[in-house]
């Protein structure tokens, strides 16, 4: 992976270790996220990718090592000060895997307005921004709905809207297509494809190999808290033994009518 | 035990809102200090949980089912102050949105269940559990006792509130305007149901949940166990606050006694020795004196010194009945509040004066 030494990485993770409840979630992790690229964090459940996202968003802090954001250290103390926190929260937006924890406001409108209100935008600006975002995501008809009356697809659209309304430079997405029906999933994927070549840096964690080629320019592969591979999606997808080892694919067994048993890695390659 | 609108007079409701307000205020301050930014998400979600727990139908010994409030669990896991707020919020939503409990009586319901319930549950749990290990079975028993005591204390408060309604609030023809039954009916009626079913439900739930957490995640029980790092003891710090905590059960006891003083009216007869000079010539009073003195007839004339001294001082509220108050029960209660209030005020002044004097001495030295 080549990197222009003059470009400051958006996130620079240096030798980070993070433990949670006696379990080592990340160990000795080092990687850099360059600006403007779409990155995929690949790994099975529990491999540490969600934890990394939380660390990148300043929601948890490493025991050892450090993380910098655009050259500035991302630490608990720095996030206490409003001068650092407000710009950081506006520039980095995170979409969590479980939409219910992110939809904590009584109505969709309130939810999308939460971020701007927290950043203390004036009332007119908040109302205008919310209205615009609801239209862009085509959820204006949902604006007075309560979150528990939304389908999973609608919930994910609202969570996206509530993050995008602040126009962040960096988007962190944790398993965005999980629990979605095929139609909603493909809408989400279209959205992620649409970010290609844009100004935003996108970091998506997923274990769905089918979508990696579409949504990412580069991948990092995780296994039990360690980085085991990095490269373009094409490069990674070719390494079938690595994929099996990291539980990203499974050996699919089927029995033919003749009684023969075939075993081969299960992958759906498709071209766009 | 959710009291609907119409059972308590507006003045009773107002008094109970007034009584709840300081507890709500103190609870919010203390919880804010401990939880800081986590206050909103934690209390919201906890209030939602308390609401859902109140909707659980619990199996009881004997094959019946009942509902519990979960006040002991809330007090044990979250501490009494967070419990006060979480349960008050749950009760508010039940009352306003689901119509379970009245709007005017919300203050009363919060006082009985959220405030008295949480404080009694916490006090009983701490007393009964002592310093035993988080996983000891004594804690399960303590939780059971805490739940049982809390619910019955709440029920008792509600019963007293019901029972004083017909005493104070009647229409011109004498018909009670609100809850119609006097204390002598209200207390047994409320307590029978709660000493049995509701108390059992609370007992079963509190014991069961504490036992469950002992098996799965004992650290959740840390907050109300002494010597733990995250406990309120460490965080509170200041001297006068810890003193407040030790005397708090006394305050609660005093408050409860204040509320219950009208019960004194039910007592028959006179206290031995508390007779005035005039009673010696009153036939009825003489009968009571005799009854109280093992049927010994009192002398015909009062003792000479008694007569002389009794003219020295006329009490402002003779017979605990201020002249401007017409009903004896109100007079009784007012006298109790006035009396205790005066004592408390004097002690507080004396205490702060003593504190000042001590402080000055420290300064000088």
């Amino acid at each position: 992976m080549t990197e222009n030494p003059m470009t400051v990485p958006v996130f620079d993770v240096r030798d980070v270790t993070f433990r949670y409840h006696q379990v080592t979630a990340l160990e000795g992790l080092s990687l850099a996220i360059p600006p403007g690229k779409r990155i995929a964090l690949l790994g099975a459940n529990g491999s540490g990718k969600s934890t990394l996202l939380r660390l990148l968003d300043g929601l948890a802090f490493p025991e050892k090592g450090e993380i910098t954001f655009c050259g500035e250290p991302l630490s608990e103390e720095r996030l206490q000060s409003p001068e650092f926190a407000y710009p950081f929260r506006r520039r980095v937006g995170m979409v969590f895997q479980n939409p219910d924890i992110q939809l904590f406001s009584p109505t969709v409108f309130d939810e999308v307005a939460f971020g701007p209100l927290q950043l203390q935008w004036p009332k007119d600006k908040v109302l205008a921004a919310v209205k615009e975002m609801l239209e862009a995501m085509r959820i204006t008809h949902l604006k007075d709905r309560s979150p528990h009356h939304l389908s999973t697809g609608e919930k994910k659209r609202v969570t996206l809207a509530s993050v995008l309304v602040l126009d962040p430079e960096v988007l962190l997405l944790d398993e965005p297509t999980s629990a979605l029906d095929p139609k909603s999933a493909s809408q989400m994927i279209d959205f992620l494809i649409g970010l290609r070549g844009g100004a935003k840096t996108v970091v998506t964690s997923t274990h769905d190999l089918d979508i990696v080629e579409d949504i990412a320019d580069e991948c990092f592969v995780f296994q039990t808290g360690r980085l085991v591979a990095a490269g373009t999606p094409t490069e990674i997808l070719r390494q079938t033994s690595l994929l099996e080892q990291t539980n990203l694919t499974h050996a699919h067994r089927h029995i033919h009518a003749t009684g023969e048993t075939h075993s081969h890695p299960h992958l759906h390659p498709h071209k766009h | 035990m959710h009291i609907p609108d119409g059972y308590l007079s507006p003045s009773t409701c107002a008094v109970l809102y007034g009584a709840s307000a300081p507890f709500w205020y103190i609870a919010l301050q203390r919880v804010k200090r401990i939880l800081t930014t986590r206050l909103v998400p934690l209390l919201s979600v906890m209030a939602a949980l308390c609401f859902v727990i109140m909707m659980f139908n619990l199996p009881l010994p004997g094959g019946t089912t009942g509902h519990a409030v979960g006040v002991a669990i809330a007090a044990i896991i979250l501490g009494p102050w967070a419990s006060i707020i979480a349960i008050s919020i749950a009760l508010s939503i039940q009352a306003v949105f689901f119509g379970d409990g009245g709007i005017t009586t919300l203050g009363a319901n919060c006082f009985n269940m959220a405030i008295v319930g949480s404080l009694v549950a916490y006090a009983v749990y701490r007393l009964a559990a002592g310093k035993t290990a988080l996983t000891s079975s004594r804690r399960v028993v303590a939780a059971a006792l805490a739940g049982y005591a809390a619910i019955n204390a709440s029920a008792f408060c509600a019963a007293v509130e019901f029972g004083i309604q017909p005493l104070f609030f009647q229409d011109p023809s004498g018909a009670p305007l609100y809850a119609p039954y006097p204390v002598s009916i209200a207390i047994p009626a409320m307590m029978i149901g709660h000493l049995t079913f509701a108390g059992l439900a609370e007992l079963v739930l509190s014991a069961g949940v504490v036992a469950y957490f002992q098996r799965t995640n004992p650290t959740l029980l840390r907050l109300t166990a002494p010597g733990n790092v995250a406990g309120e003891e460490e965080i509170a710090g200041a001297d006068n606050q810890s003193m407040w905590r030790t005397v708090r059960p006394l305050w609660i006891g005093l408050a409860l006694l204040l509320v219950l003083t009208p019960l004194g009216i039910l007592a028959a007869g006179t206290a031995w020795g508390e007779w005035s000079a005039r009673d010696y010539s009153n036939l009825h009073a003489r009968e009571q004196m005799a009854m109280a003195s093992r049927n010994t007839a009192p002398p015909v004339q009062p003792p000479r010194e008694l007569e002389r001294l009794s003219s020295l001082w006329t009490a402002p509220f003779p017979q605990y009945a201020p002249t401007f108050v017409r009903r004896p029960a109100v007079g009784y209660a007012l006298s109790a509040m006035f009396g205790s209030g005066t004592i408390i005020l004097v002690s507080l002044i004396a205490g702060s004066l003593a504190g000042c004097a001590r402080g000055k001495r420290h300064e000088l030295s």
Partner: protein
Amino acid sequence: MNFLERTLAGFLNAVEHALDAEDLAKANGLLQCLDPRVKVIGILILVIAAATAHKLWVIGAVFAFALLLAASSRVSPLLLGRRVWIPALIFTGIIAFPAPFVIPGRVVWRLPGLGWPLTAQGLMSAGYLVTRVETAATLSVLLILSTPWTRVLKALRVLRVPVVLVVILGMAYRYIFLLLESARDMLESRRSRMVGKLNGPDNRRLAAASVGVLMSKTLQLSGDVYSAMLARGFRGEVYMLDDFQTAALDWIMLVLIAALAAAAFYYGR
């Protein structure tokens, strides 16, 4: 299992009530058009008037007004009967029933056979209790059925309820339904796995474990929600956006209700 079934039935009832409220809040009626702040203040005043009245007919008049409001807001009497009047009558009826026999006063009738006396005062007090309960319950349910809950909460600000409490009430309400769903899933899955009946102690253990699991999930949930709030810039302050606008109709209704309440206070004293 008895307690499982009943608990699930209770959950369902709560969810249905919320759905009824949401449907009716969208209907085209008088109350639905009014500013929520006017409704909150107005209904509160009327409830207090009904609670303060010392005369039965005054309470009845307030109840009649409540019926008028209901009729003009597309709230059907059947719904009110099912949700409010009958449950309240049963609950308060049982409590009020002994009153005519127990309260001392002028005897107006004797029960044939047993000869138990009914007093006028007892009948009156039962009357006061039942009418007050029904009137207050009708008024508060009208508020809820005609206004989305979130707007009711925002309207509470006019009563000087602190913003932090309004936010907590809103968030608690939202998560009640999530927790109800979790609890329902948990109980239904246990029910489907149960073969035959459980004995008493096992039943109780099951109930306690259900609550315990729910509590653990809730604590976990609160941590997650907190993270999500932090990620969107939350630093401890809560803000609220409201867009209430009063129209002429609001002021007219407010004046009307205030006048009615004043009359009720005067005649009912």
